[in-house]
Structure formats: structure tokens, C-alpha cells
């Protein structure tokens, strides 16, 4: 008996034909509904494509909602913790959204596409919550995950690549802006956004144009060191950038079963996304209470002594009490540091606190244990100026 393609557990993205041709390793993993490449060639090579030239990442599995209607902005303002009034057409905003307990359901980006039309891009699915919040607003919400595809085009030569695609004036896009271009009879939307903390863009077209977009992009990028990249390389750059990831650095509130496992924006280092000067938004009451009474946890970015990755480690204070754990860790090839993201109980995790990570590593099946000193740092571990330059210099 054979299984029809549509009946398979995990689907192929519209870029599958191209990605599979280029994937030397045959290593794929499921990401939401789709299978995506872990690594095309070598993780190091792909990593340096992003930090040194142009890396291209298939964003198909990102969840996308189309929000339309006259009340769209008011609706988004109720949904999001961040004030959305500055979100004018042509702009993109990063925000978080919470349930009534003030726990983060997800973080993501909202694109104001045109008058009365927005796109919300997120890691998790939220139709139920989005619809529940829509009561009383004249808005329509549609899941367009399968209808729109995206490619992240990231790295120092990414702007040159796009210019070689004849996308005129693309260099004038500032971070968190987007513009559209005619492309093979459809609209290609380009936003200056990404998950790498570097100069970079995301390209969006209707799914039917996926292969055409890929081919045009790779042709244009030939002279600029373009390479497809898999999720392993992307994970390193996003930790370097200090970005959190749902299901990895926090449990999305919708999936929380055990009491207290959710995290508020304050507990994820997203204080700057919470705007109490808005009178009404989901989770406001709980967040205000937390602001007054204090949070339970603190999100930390850690620079860890030595070079052994601290994945899944417990974090200790100087009295050797467990005060938290590491949620993401990697060696940073650009910062040349052993870095990690983690969650610690209050009051720990202040700048200068003496913390240790308990690291287990093995050498030829002999396990060693290490208590490595951790230094709390602020901001990204690697933050090149080109990330903000407009127009970006040619590299």
C-alpha cells in the first residue's frame, strides 16, 4: 500500500524540489507541518554564509495570518502588549501577546501591508485566541500559512544580492520596513527583518511562485556567495543575536499544563514590548500586578567561561543552590565566546551575580562534569553595525 503525498504526516514545502537538489546531507527535520533541511552541507559553512555572505532560509512553516478590516489596528492593539499605533503601512513591528494570566502565548512580527490589511507571522498557531479576541471588532482573520511562502535572505551581501535581482531602491529599506516589487506577474514583498541579528531581508510571494523566486534569487546571488542554510546554522545565529524561540526558551502559554510553567514578557526579557499606557490589552491586569509585585523569573544571556557548550545545564548561585537552567546554548564563532540563554529565579541574574553552569561533556565516552562561571551580559552577543546601516555598505 502506498501513501498519497497529501496524506503524509509531514509535508514538503513549495521549495522542496530546489532544497532537496542542494541538500548534500539528506538530513531533514519536521517543523510544524513541513519537513525542512537541518543542514545542507556543513553547519560551519552555512553559518559563515550568514555572517560573511548571504544565507537563504526557507520560512514556509512560519504561521501566517491575514488580518483585514476597518478595526484592524484597534484589534491588534488589544491583542498585543506593544502599542501598535506607530504601525503604518510599509512598517513591521515585533511584539509579544499574552493570555489573561499575562503569560506569553507567542512573539512574532506584524506587517502592515496596506490600508486595512495586516499579516501576523508567528512560530505557533493561534486561530482560536485570535478569533476569541476579535469579538466586537470588525476584522476578519484568515490562516494564510499555506498560501504565502517566505525566504529569509540574510548576511552582509544580502542587499547586493537583492540589488542584483533588480529590486530598485531596496537598499533604502530601513530595519522593520517593507516594500513590494513586481515579480513575474505577482507581487514580491521584501521586508528588512530576520532572525539572525545581521543585515538581512525576508522575501514573500504567493506559494505558486516559490520555485521562481528561489531560482531568481540564487542566480542573482551567485557573485555574492549565496548559500542555502539549514536550521542548525540558523539556531547558532539566533542565539548570538539573543533571540528567544517558542518551545525552546519558553513554553507557549497555550500548551502549559503544569501551573506556573508559563512566562510573562518581563520574565523573557521583553519588558520593552509592554506598554501600560494603552488602557486595554490582553493580559494587562496580570502584568500590571506583576510589575508591582515583582516577577518570578529573569531571562538571562550568559557568557560562560571555557568552551564546553552548556546545553540543558542547571544554573547555580554562589551558594550552590540551583536557581535556574539553560534553555539554549552554543559556541559563538563570531564572538568567540561560549554563550547561552537561560531562565533563573528572582532575584538572580543581575549584572555581576556569581552564577555557575553545571556542564556535562564526554571525551571518548568518559563523562566529565564542570562548574563553569557564567557572566550575565546585556544585549546581543554579536551585533554588527551593518544590521542597522541604511543604505547598507557593499561588503
Amino acid at each position: 500500500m502506498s501513501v498519497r503525498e497529501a496524506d503524509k504526516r509531514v509535508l514538503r514545502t513549495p521549495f522542496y524540489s530546489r532544497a532537496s537538489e542542494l541538500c548534500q546531507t539528506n538530513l531533514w527535520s519536521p517543523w510544524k507541518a513541513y519537513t525542512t533541511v537541518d543542514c545542507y552541507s556543513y553547519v560551519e559553512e552555512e553559518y559563515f554564509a550568514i555572517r560573511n555572505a548571504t544565507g537563504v532560509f526557507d520560512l514556509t512553516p512560519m504561521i501566517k495570518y491575514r488580518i483585514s478590516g476597518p478595526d484592524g489596528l484597534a484589534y491588534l492593539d488589544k491583542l498585543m502588549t506593544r502599542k501598535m499605533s506607530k504601525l503604518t503601512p510599509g512598517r513591521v513591528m515585533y511584539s509579544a501577546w499574552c493570555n489573561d494570566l499575562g503569560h506569553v502565548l507567542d512573539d512574532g512580527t506584524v506587517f502592515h501591508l496596506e490600508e486595512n490589511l495586516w499579516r501576523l507571522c508567528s512560530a505557533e498557531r493561534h486561530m482560536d485566541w485570535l478569533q476569541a479576541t476579535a469579538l466586537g471588532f470588525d476584522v476578519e482573520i484568515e490562516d494564510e500559512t499555506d498560501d504565502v511562502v517566505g525566504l529569509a535572505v540574510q548576511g552582509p551581501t544580502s542587499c547586493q544580492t537583492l540589488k542584483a535581482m533588480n529590486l530598485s531602491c531596496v537598499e533604502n529599506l530601513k530595519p522593520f520596513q517593507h516594500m513590494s516589487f513586481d515579480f513575474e506577474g505577482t507581487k514580491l514583498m521584501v521586508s528588512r527583518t530576520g532572525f539572525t541579528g545581521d543585515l538581512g531581508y525576508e522575501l514573500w510571494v504567493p506559494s505558486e511562485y516559490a520555485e521562481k523566486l528561489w531560482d531568481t534569487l540564487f542566480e542573482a546571488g551567485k557573485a555574492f556567495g549565496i548559500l542555502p542554510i539549514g536550521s542548525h546554522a540558523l539556531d547558532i545565529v539566533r542565539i548570538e543575536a539573543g533571540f528567544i524561540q517558542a518551545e525552546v526558551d519558553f513554553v507557549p502559554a497555550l500548551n502549559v499544563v503544569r501551573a506556573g510553567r508559563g512566562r510573562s514578557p518581563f520574565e523573557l526579557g521583553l519588558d520593552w514590548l509592554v506598554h501600560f499606557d494603552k488602557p486595554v490589552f490582553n493580559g494587562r491586569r496580570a502584568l500590571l500586578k506583576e510589575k508591582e509585585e515583582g516577577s518570578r523569573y529573569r531571562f538571562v544571556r550568559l557568557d560562560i567561561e571555557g568552551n564546553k557548550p552548556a546545553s540543558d545545564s542547571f544554573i547555580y548561585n554562589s551558594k550552590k543552590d540551583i536557581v535556574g537552567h539553560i534553555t539554549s546554548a552554543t559556541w559563538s564563532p563570531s564572538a568567540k565566546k561560549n554563550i547561552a540563554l537561560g531562565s533563573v529565579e528572582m532575584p538572580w541574574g543581575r549584572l555581576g551575580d556569581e552564577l555557575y553552569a553545571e556542564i556535562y561533556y564526554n571525551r571518548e565516552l568518559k563523562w566529565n562534569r564542570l562548574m563553569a562561571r557564567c557572566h550575565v551580559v546585556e544585549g546581543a552577543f554579536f551585533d554588527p553595525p551593518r544590521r542597522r546601516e541604511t543604505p547598507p555598505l557593499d561588503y
Partner: protein
Amino acid sequence: MKKYDAIVIGAGHNGLTNAAYLAKSGMDVLVVEKNPWIGGASVSRSLHEGWTYSNCSYVCSLFRPEIYRDLELARHGLQVIPYEGGLTFMQDGDYFGNYSDHERHHRELARHSKRDANAYDRFSADVSRQTRLIRPFLMRTPPDPTSFKPADVMELVHMLKTYWDLGEDILYDTMRFWTMSVGDFLDEYFESDVIKAHMAGSGIIGTALGIYSPGTAYVLLHHYMGDVDGSIGSWGFARGGMGSIAKALAGSFQSFGGEIMTDAGVDKILVKNGETKGVVLENGDEHYADIVVSNLDPKRTFLKIMDENDLPPDVVKKAKNFKIRGSSGKLNISLDGMPTFRGIEKGHELLKADFHFIDSMERMERAYDDWKNGTWSKDPYVDTLIPTQVDPTMAPPGKHMMTVFVQYCPPKVNGEEWTDELRDEFGQTVINQIAEYSPDFKDLILHAEIRTPRELENEVGLTEGNIFQGELTMDQLLFNRPFPGYAQYRGPVKGMYMSGSGTHPGGGVMGAPGVNSAREILSDLSRKNVTPEAFSDE
């Protein structure tokens, strides 16, 4: 005559579990069973040459893994194989499939409603929260809330603490959950009728209530709280049918020196001076022991095999009022081959699990209306499986066995006793429903065993044919099961105990009542506790 340390009445799986633990602790134990075979409602029998039926229960999830491991049931031949899938056929030719893979399931849900597909995650988290509340109490004796004995007080405190640790809002949810209807519960999550109808089935199986009757949300939970190999909510097949569970338990019991007597129906429990002394069989034989455990339901135990004058009047009254209404029937069918089903390919993975033919909440409720009106559902909710797609031992190669659990089927038809003609008519109703979706089904039938509450009661001794030995409503759960004051497995007469599904935590092939009861007996005898502790979900 020889005197045993304990006699267990009824070789149902709980009786056997109970007996195995008593024997394991070194006691000399006799199990007496009225039928020529063992297992009670956990039984496999061959009624058509070459085919084996799981005559009553047919799928396994609730059976406590601690008992499975501790009594070495694997060594005694038990294998439980999880199955994936499930579907509800729709009248318009489509279906709703149930996949265990999250993403595949999401896609199928989204085909019917994108919002429901996402709401399903909320539903799963909420149900998980409730199962986490109940699971730690399955292998514990419920506290007596009116008692000031330290053990009871501590157990109550433990219970409250477990609640408290789950957070404030779950308290509200729990109070509502335990009292609301499965229909209202599902309405809080889903908009698609077929999705709701598919899931509502778990709320009414074995229950004389409708989908909108209060209390049925808990019944859904009762079907979600088990696990196979740690996967909570999963169900599986016992290889060789559900009788394999009883067989393995019997093997374990006998390995500890236990003795099983079949064709040995008990007429009366012998009571002298307020103490049990043994049993009198229907053939007049007497067997003696100071400990007598009844694995029969509370009605049979107190009203049939005990004398009213040996019992406190309030126990007699409570037994008379115990809710144990019959509401289910069953068909077991030998098939000459795999039937074809409309709209789905033969061999599709979804067909390897339970399938149903009611696609709306309206039809579910109508099915209950028929029961209330004193007859079987003319458009019944059936839980159908063809286990031979997975289990090669129950039919010849290429042939199949189908099990069809039917909700609703009344204990009496319009107030009159069942007759063989009526039973066959009931069977025909069910067969006709399936045939609407399977053109070749009728032609493939080689043999069918049709069971109404009459057959279930006469054979297994389940009063009115109630599959759980008493309804699973709040007034008959936890410290109220079977009745307040008697929820700790001790009967009203010294030396007399209960171990069946009529005690906490209730019906299903679970083994928990049997093991909890054994723990109490061993404690009363100041013997070492040889029962296992529950695995933790943490």
C-alpha cells in the same frame, strides 16, 4: 474441609489482581468463579471456529502499568500493542479522522475547521491538567472525609495539596469539569459538529446518560486518563484479546501458589457472629476462610450473595439505591475478509482504530432519547474496531474479527424482558447502520455474537449489564464509591471486602480496585504491603 486464608469471589481481572497480591504476600488464596472460564468482562472466547472474540471489553489503556510490571504479566504472556487512528464517517460521504501524530491531526482538524484545529491544543492542555489531577489517586485508597483517623486526614491533606499545586484557576475548572456535560464541555472548544460528535463518544460509553447530561464530562476523562507505555490517553490491543490480561493475571496468581475453581458460583457468603467464615457454592459445597473478598458489583454482593439480616439496614438501602443502569450492547462478528468502507481506501491507517457512524451532536442525543423511551437506539453510537488488522492471532490469515460496542441498549425493552427475537432485531439495527457505509459488509459476515444487557448480566453477572459495575457519576466516585462510608474496600461485616469495579477508581480494565483492596486487607492483617506504588507523572 480445608481452610484458606482468603477466598475471592469472581475471577474478573480485579478479583485476580486482588488474589495475586494476597498470594504474593504468602497467603493461601482460593478464587471461585461461576463460569467455566475466567476473566469476567476481560475475556476472550472462541464461538466460531478459527475466530477469537474479546467478548466484552475490547481495548486496553486503563490497566495500571505498575501492576503489569510488578506481577510480571509480560512473563505470563501479556502483550499490549498500542493502536493509532480512529474516524467518524459522515452522512455526506466525507469523514473525520483522528491521527495520533500532532501535525497530521492538526491538518485533518483544519479540514473541518481551522479554528477547531487550534482549539484542540487548548482542549488537550485542559484535559491533560485534569488527568494529572486524577491519575495519582488511581492507586490510592480514597480518604474518608468524615473520619479523624490520622491516615484519612493525611490523605485528604495530600489530595488538597495536589489540587493546590495545580494553581488557583484549575480549581474552578475542576469543579465545573466534574459536574458538567460532555456536550457543554466540547462546546467550549469546538464549532464543528463532526469533531464534537467524534469526541463526545468517550463521554457516554457505558453510561446511561446523554451527551448533554451533567456528569458526562468526567466519563470522557475516565477514557483519557489511562496510558500505553507512558503515552497518556493512548489505547491498545491486548494480543489474543482482553482475555489475555485475565490469563496472565491468573498465571501470576498461580505462580504464587493460588488456586482457581471454575464452575463454582457462590450462593452465599457465610457470616457467623458478624464475621465472615467462607462461602457456600450453588452446588452446596462450602469453603472456609476468615477473609472473603467479593469482586461482584455492589448490588449483587449485598443483595444476592449476602443475607439482609447479616447487614446493617443502611447498607441494604444504599445497595438498593446504587445506580447501575444498563445502557450498552455489543456485537462480535467473524468476517470472511476486510470490508470496504465508503470514502476511504482499504488498509488506510485510520481504519486500524475505532470508527463510528454518528456525525452530529443531534444524532448522539437522539440515540439517548431512544434509551429513555425504553428501547435501543435506532441510529446508535457504535465504537467499532477490527483488531485483526493488528493482532494476527484472532482470525485466520486474510479473515477478520470485528468488535462493535453499542450505545444505547436498555436492560429491558419497553419494560419487558428481552427475547431472542428482540436481541436479533437489535443486532440487525447495528448491522444495518454499518452496512450503510460498507456495501460488502453483510456478505462477509460468517458469525455474530449479539449481546444485550440481558446476556451481559447473565454471563458476567454485571447487574443490568452496566459495564462499569455502577455508573461513574460524582455521587458514586472517589469516597462515594460504592457508597459513602464504604469506599475503603471494607464491607460492613468483619473479614468481608470488595475489589470490583464498583469500588474506587471505578470501571474499565484497570486493576486498580483490585490492588487497592489488597493493600487494605494486608494492612488489616498487619502483613507487609507487597503492592506497588504508582509511577509518577513528574
